[in-house]
């Protein structure tokens, strides 16, 4: 059975194995030094965050601006557990516990707020992420604004690879499952989906919780690589950074999020040396890419247009049809 699955996804499996082996070899031979390693860490974390948020924003059509909140939950839980249990087992337990708690928080937040739509949902999720951050800023166990220092470093390439691949495979399979199809139907037309007898709240919360789960994993990996955590890291700018990955890659395109995650990590890392003009260049890259590729780098036109339709509720239907026709021609 497993062989069957591998056969069906041969290109996918092969490229995964190849990526792992090549990077591992390069690390082993020292071609990739620590600096490139830290770029790889950023890439993997970006990819996990981007793909998981894409499930919520791109596939389920729920505009969330609070992903950094879930990431912070995963990061703090993992760091606190790992600091108590300084071992690989502690690291894995921390990542797992962090992800589960992040998912629970996702459910808790999702049930009330996911009744809202569009920009109202965006501002509500932004608000909840800020509330989480303020809580971390005032709790004793997170050491407030001073932050947690001396978190043991267990994140390495094999773990990064396993968790990144796991995220991609899980979310890809989820989308291709009947649950995932349901989520897409909610994005396409929530009212139609509801009238087909779909419990939309249930599926929206499910997508939200899965997204939060993987954001928690990303947070755990982050905490365990960069030694240090403080609440400021997870401000709303971080949520926006993640949203940028998703939109830049293309809403509803996992491959797009992967490419955008890699692209943005390289751009940010590369721009470090242009201290004074760094953010100016970054902002120009954002504006130019969006003007020339509003559907994102990998944007699946059909996908982003349909999302647009469900997102901009006020659009009347003949207009959407007209635009669809224009895009298709």
């Amino acid at each position: 059975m497993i062989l069957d699955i591998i056969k069906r996804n041969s290109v996918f499996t092969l490229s995964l194995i190849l990526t792992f082996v090549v990077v591992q070899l390069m690390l082993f031979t020292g071609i990739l030094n620590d600096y490139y390693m830290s770029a790889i860490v950023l890439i993997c974390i970006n990819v996990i965050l981007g793909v998981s948020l894409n499930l919520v924003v791109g596939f389920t059509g729920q505009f969330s601006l609070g992903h950094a909140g879930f990431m912070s939950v995963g990061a703090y839980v993992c760091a606190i557990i790992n600091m108590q249990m300084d071992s690989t087992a502690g690291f894995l337990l921390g990542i797992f516990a962090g992800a589960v708690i992040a998912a629970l928080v996702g459910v808790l937040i999702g049930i009330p707020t996911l009744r809202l739509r569009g920009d109202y949902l965006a501002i509500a999720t932004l608000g909840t992420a800020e509330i989480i951050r303020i809580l971390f800023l005032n709790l004793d166990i997170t050491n407030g604004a001073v932050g947690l220092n001396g978190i043991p470093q267990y994140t390495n390439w094999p773990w990064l690879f396993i968790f990144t691949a796991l995220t991609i495979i899980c979310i890809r399979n989820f989308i291709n499952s009947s649950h995932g199809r349901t989520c897409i139907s909610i994005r396409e037309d929530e009212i139609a989906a509801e009238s087909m007898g779909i419990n939309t709240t249930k599926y929206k919360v499910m997508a939200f919780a899965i997204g939060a789960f993987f954001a928690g994993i990303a947070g755990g990996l982050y905490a365990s690589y960069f030694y240090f955590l403080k609440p400021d890291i997870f401000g709303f700018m971080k949520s926006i950074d993640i949203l940028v990955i998703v939109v830049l890659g293309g809403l509803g395109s996992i491959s797009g999020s992967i490419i955008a995650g890699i692209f943005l990590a390289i751009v940010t890392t590369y721009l470090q040396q242009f201290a004074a003009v760094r953010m100016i260049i970054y902002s120009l890259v954002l504006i130019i890419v969006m003007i020339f590729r509003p559907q994102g780098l990998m944007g699946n036109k059909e996908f982003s247009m349909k999302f647009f339709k469900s997102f901009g509720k006020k659009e009347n239907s003949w207009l959407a049809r007209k635009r669809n026709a224009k895009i298709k021609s």
Partner: protein
Amino acid sequence: MKNVWKIALAASLSAALFLTGCGGGGGSDEGSSGSADGDTIKIGVNYELSGATATYGSSSVEGIDLAIKQINEAGGVLGKQIELVEGDNKSEPAEATSLSTKLMTNDGVVAVLGPATTGNFKATIPVADKNQIPVISGSATADDVTVDLDDDGNPTEVKEFAFKICFSDSFQGITMANFASSNLGATKAVIIMDNSSDYAIGLAKNFRSTFESLGGEIVGEEAYIAGNTDFSGILTKIRSMDFDVIFLPGYYSEAGLIIKQARDLGITAPVLGADGFDSPTLLELAGASALNDVYYSNHYSSLDEDPAVIQFIEDFNAEYGKDPDAFNALGYDTAKFLCDAIERAGEADPIAIKDALASTESFAGVTGTFSIDENHNPVKSVVVIKLTDGEPSESIKI
């Protein structure tokens, strides 16, 4: 759909390969060119040039640039010119880590200056240990920056490659508590602290414990977040309390506003602060009439008329057209301090520099003359400056 998926994966894979391929080539080239072999000595500069704490980072870098310019004009160090490799860490610990890794492994620097804030600086120390290259901060003030502390705050293990040249939080907090109690005779104090800054939290903690042990009482504690501009809520609340002094740990950008708004609301009690007040901006923000009965601890006083300090203020003015603040001065000193150590080490080798830094005796900087103790902290004297109508009117040696 299936095809798109495959193409995407292939593309991302090739992108990954491209990155790593390029990276590999670049890394081995630059990595092999040893730092000490060239005609220049490379020093890394890892500061907050964008993001929330950009103002502290960019001020520090101004000081560093000036110091290195002067050193290079005077012939450099060990007959070689100093080359600064500057980078921006976006005020984020992760960026600080990756930037210092880049500076140490790709650019071949012999030491790294910065970051300015405690959290970001701490994030770079494991990298320094791993690469055996010293890092120096001019303004990471927490007690446990350069040395691990046990639960009672006693030093346990020194961090071999980390140095700082600023006061520790405990030192200034205790100083100001003593000053409040013995010089001002205060028995009741209110603390307003910047709760987003570990510097302010550290100062407040030490002030509180010392002030209470001297028989004083903290009657109110309020907090704000860096970047706030409206403090009328907490100040109105404080106005109805009974207290002798306000202790205001934090930086000039908010302290100036708090003092102004407090005076506007009719709060006249003395305001106490620490070296975070030291900036011309404090006067601009608060206005001269509000800055009466304001005291803060500092490394040096402009009333001292130390020729080195006067010279520095003049040079800084000539270069940037403004008066230096504490971050400018500390940045200037970190650069001078490092170059002095390289000179004494006799070679631009990170380990030798680290040893020279650790054995610094009586280094005369513009922020005071100091030696480095066994915990890699500076031993320097502190003065309390009294402001009257916005100008320093008295400097009190403690």
